[in-house]
């Protein structure tokens, strides 16, 4: 067993231990220490994950696998954590005396997600999934607001139901194949896939993943939680959690394969997710709710790649997950800053009026982020959607692709509504928005990477394809 492969997680564990000790110190000191500690931690995690990128191996009696899929997704997760950590200095609705807990739960949830990407045993998978979920339940309740605990409880109960169904489904799979290891299930899958019980078990297990991805019909928690959680937390749920969900989708599907019935189910869910997400987003006024519905729609697009079940399908989902982290963080960055400047952690569309005059740079970032979400060239979102849709098209899902493209048009409407407020309306205050250095750097990097990933996607596409190839059972 080569523990050097486990270094990123070990570092994270150490950091969590340190944060636990920090709860004992004075709250004032701890709160300000957090502003440096979390971004630093994110940076170190990225570097250490980067160095394990080319390695592979199995740990802990073959329940934990290090390969390019896991390390690639861990890098994306660490990036997302880093960005949220940088943005955390703009938190306004986390209670002062709970700031250290905020740091702890953010880190534990990241740990859970990182382990999810490596888990190749159903028990490991379940434990790490619950670790990340429970941290997120607590995080979403962590806000000075009456409604936050309510949303937290909803999230918890919804998650509990999903994980109950997951266990039920997995018990069917384990019963049929006689092993909890994904590799073992993969070996027997060709023989079992024709059995209805196998497909049924898989479909139930999918419940938990759909819940993580906030796809229809397990999307109900998303708008309420997005709205009620503190904005940096929302941003973390909206980016890292989605990327981790894509990772386990890929893992499970690569192990079990997809039966024709399952493809139908996923197709219908993708169809409904896209339609519902985009249609309801049209009538939202609260920007975080709007982004919640947009993420439901985006989950539909991602399902399109996953249900293709080919190398291209998986690798383009990987690509899109990365692009999605970038563009969604770009959008949330602006939301967080606007929330801070208006001292209201639930910014309405009207709070964005005239942002272009108050901060042209932020306005540009929001514009590019939203256009990328809508899939306008030459941004990362366009390239991602393009390869995603081509992969689905290759498998003959032309109706879904057509519907997805039409949906992108609908989504443009609400994205551009926000852009209209940013660029064409008069601001209520002329006061310019000032950014901290860290945020400025993060914003600039997001801006550049959105364009670069859109124009020169080849290197990353090649990486994702190699990753998927390396992850075969």
């Amino acid at each position, binding site marked *: 067993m080569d523990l050097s492969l486990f270094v990123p997680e070990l570092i994270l564990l150490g950091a969590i231990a340190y944060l636990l000790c920090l709860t004992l110190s004075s709250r004032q000191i701890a709160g300000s220490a957090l502003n440096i500690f979390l971004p630093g931690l994110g940076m170190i995690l990225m570097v250490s994950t980067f160095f394990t990128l080319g390695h592979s191996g199995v740990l802990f009696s073959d329940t934990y696998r290090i390969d390019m899929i896991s390390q690639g997704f861990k890098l994306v997760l660490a990036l997302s954590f880093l960005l949220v950590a940088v943005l955390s200095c703009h938190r306004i609705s986390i209670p002062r005396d709970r700031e250290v807990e905020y740091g702890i739960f953010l880190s534990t949830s990241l740990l859970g997600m990182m382990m999810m990407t490596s888990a190749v045993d159903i028990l490991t998978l379940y434990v790490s999934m619950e670790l990340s979920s429970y941290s997120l339940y607590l995080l979403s309740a962590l806000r000075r607001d009456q409604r936050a605990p309510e949303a937290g*409880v*909803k999230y918890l*109960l*919804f998650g509990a*139901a999903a994980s109950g*169904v997951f266990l039920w489904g997995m018990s069917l799979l384990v019963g049929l194949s006689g092993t909890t290891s994904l590799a073992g299930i993969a070996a027997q899958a060709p023989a079992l896939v024709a059995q*209805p019980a196998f*497909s*049924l078990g898989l*479909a*139930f297990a999918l*419940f938990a993943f759909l819940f993580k991805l906030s796809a*229809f*019909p*397990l999307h*109900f*928690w998303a*708008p*309420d939680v997005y709205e009620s959680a503190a904005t940096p937390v929302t941003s973390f749920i909206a980016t890292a959690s989605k990327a981790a969900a894509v990772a386990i989708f890929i893992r499970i599907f690569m192990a079990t394969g997809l039966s024709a*019935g*399952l493809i*139908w*189910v996923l197709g*219908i*869910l993708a169809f409904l997710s896209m*339609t*519902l997400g*985009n*249609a*309801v*987003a*049209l*009538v*939202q006024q609260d920007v975080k709710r709007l982004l919640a519905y947009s993420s439901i729609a985006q989950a539909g697009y991602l399902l399109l790649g996953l249900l293709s079940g080919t190398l*291209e399908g998986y690798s383009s989902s990987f690509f899109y997950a990365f692009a999605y982290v970038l563009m969604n963080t770009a959008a949330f960055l602006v939301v967080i800053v606007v929330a801070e400047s208006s001292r209201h952690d639930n910014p309405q569309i009207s709070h964005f009026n005239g942002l272009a005059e108050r901060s042209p740079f932020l306005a540009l970032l929001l514009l590019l982020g939203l256009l990328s979400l809508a899939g306008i060239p030459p941004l990362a979102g366009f390239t991602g959607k393009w390869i995603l849709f*081509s992969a689905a*098209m*290759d498998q003959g899902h032309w109706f879904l692709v057509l519907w997805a493209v039409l949906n992108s048009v*609908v989504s443009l*409407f609400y994205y551009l509504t926000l852009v209209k407020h940013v660029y064409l309306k008069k601001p209520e205050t002329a006061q310019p928005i000032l950014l901290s250095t860290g945020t400025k750097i993060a914003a600039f990097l997001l801006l550049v990477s959105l364009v670069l990933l859109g124009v*020169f*996607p*080849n290197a990353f596409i090649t990486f994702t394809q190699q990753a998927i190839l390396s992850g075969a059972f």
Partner: protein
Amino acid sequence: MTDLHLFWVIQLAPLLAFLLIQVLPKTINKVAPAIGMAFSLTAALASLNLSFAHSQGAGLPVEFSRQWLVVADYAVWPNIPVPHYTLSVGFLLDPLNLLMITLVTTISFFVQLFSFYYMNEDPSRPRYFGFLSFFSFSMTGLVLSNNLLQTFLFWELVGLTSYLLIGFWFEKKSAATAARKAFVINRLADLGFYLGIILLFLLFGTLGFATLKADALRNVLGHGTLTLIGLLIFCGVMGKSAQFPFHVWLPDAMEGPTPVSALIHSATMVAAGVFLLARAFDLFSASHTTLLVILSIGAITALMSATLAAIQRDIKRILAYSTVSQLGLMVMAIGAGSAESGMFHLSTHAYFKSLLFLTSGAFIHRFHTNDIWEIADRGGKKDAVALGCLAFGLLSLSGVPPFAGFFSKDLILEVLKHHGGIFFYGVAVLVSFLTAYYSFRLFFVIALSKIGHEVRAHHESLTLKISRALPLFSLAALSLITGFTGHAFHLNMELLITTVILVVAGGALAYSQFKDPAAAEAALRGNQGFIFKILERKFFMDDAYDFLVKKVGLALGRWLNAFDRAVINSLMVNQTSFSVMRLGRVVSRLQNGLLQDYLAWAVGIGILIVFCFL
């Protein structure tokens, strides 16, 4: 420095100049001309360095290419087995664009130098020099690129800068209109170009110039398809190089500042079309039908605009029509199958025509009029520098040996005689005759008129004098010597005699009519003949476009407008969007905040779907 470094210098120096000029604060933007000149000089020196290093064609062609996008065969095209479409970006250097890049960068530099004199009093000088630098950037990009798509991108950028510079004095209505006309006509033509590129890419799978070989194309594609692609791409050439029937924008483009006309609308950008013909020559020569069409279009253009040049009064318009006609000659040469002779004439023409335009700029700047009779009246012939350079340029244009124009035009006549058939040879001879006629006419009117209301030269500082005279003299010298650089040249006695006879005849006719310019002008005013009328209305081409746009276009537009409002807008678009909105409102009621409802929906729908499909 390696070739690649030099490429980057040539490519990026003008862009850097443009960016620098853009970010300069208003207080010190007087240095904009200096920046423009310094960077264009750098680019010119770099390209001269490059052309000396490869003067004998050693080590060419050099290609630097990077894969940009590999498109797997998702793009479905029935029955065409192309496994992978590859788009690359990069530089290609061969003798052809070595010639072109040297020409572009040197003329760019001279024009920037002259602009310092010409635009000395203009308040928006920084904008002017910024655009000029940006043009150089786009033009070098066009010339250096190694594939059609990249060429097309820069092709559009030069179109944009051309638009911006024609309309540089946008407060003048005629300038704004001319800019719009140029832009719209070019877009129309480029549509064909773009369709051609798409078609070629879909059917052939690559757009790199190095891979576009006639045999390879013929192996993959049929004659009809090749002709179609060739003609579509030729559409773009017709727009940019102002070939019939897209030539109408170029004379109007003379509304821009005169140095711009010299650089963009005579020497470089309008020659880009001819350059593209030579660059992708195999693409056109793969089908003999395409070549025949190219030859015919060139012939129509050359003859038509040569006759038009013969009756203009505006010095820039004379030169503009002459440019169109010379471009027609180049296109004819290429249509007859000789890309070398076309390119040779392109390069000599670039030098002497930019010389002529700068000379006309010198006249216009001093006498504040474009009309040749008025220039003469205000003392044109007293301006010895300008008159001398005008003579140099016109002698070259009309093809008097040993000026550069003689050599290149001679080569074209020879090519047409041997490969073009007697008809096209005849057209070319007629065009040469007309060229000599209008050149001498222009010269005689300015040189032989009596001076009426003389305008004395302002006192100019030494810097201004230098920036006026240096480009003129340099270009005059170049238009004398470039003729000897054509390596494939050999003297053909028969053609030499033909040319000399043509020049003498044209000159004599011009002399007989214009030996007394004042009387000739009176005669012109009285002339109401049929042919004269046709020429004055430019063969009714503008009227035809007017009719097409105003009558046919508008009627169609009104009808489509009604259809659009009634059917597409209200019935289809609005109804769709309203129903999507309605759907959103209805479905958002699902989100009522009650957890039990959420779970009921989730589980209910989940079970329904699972049992229906598994």
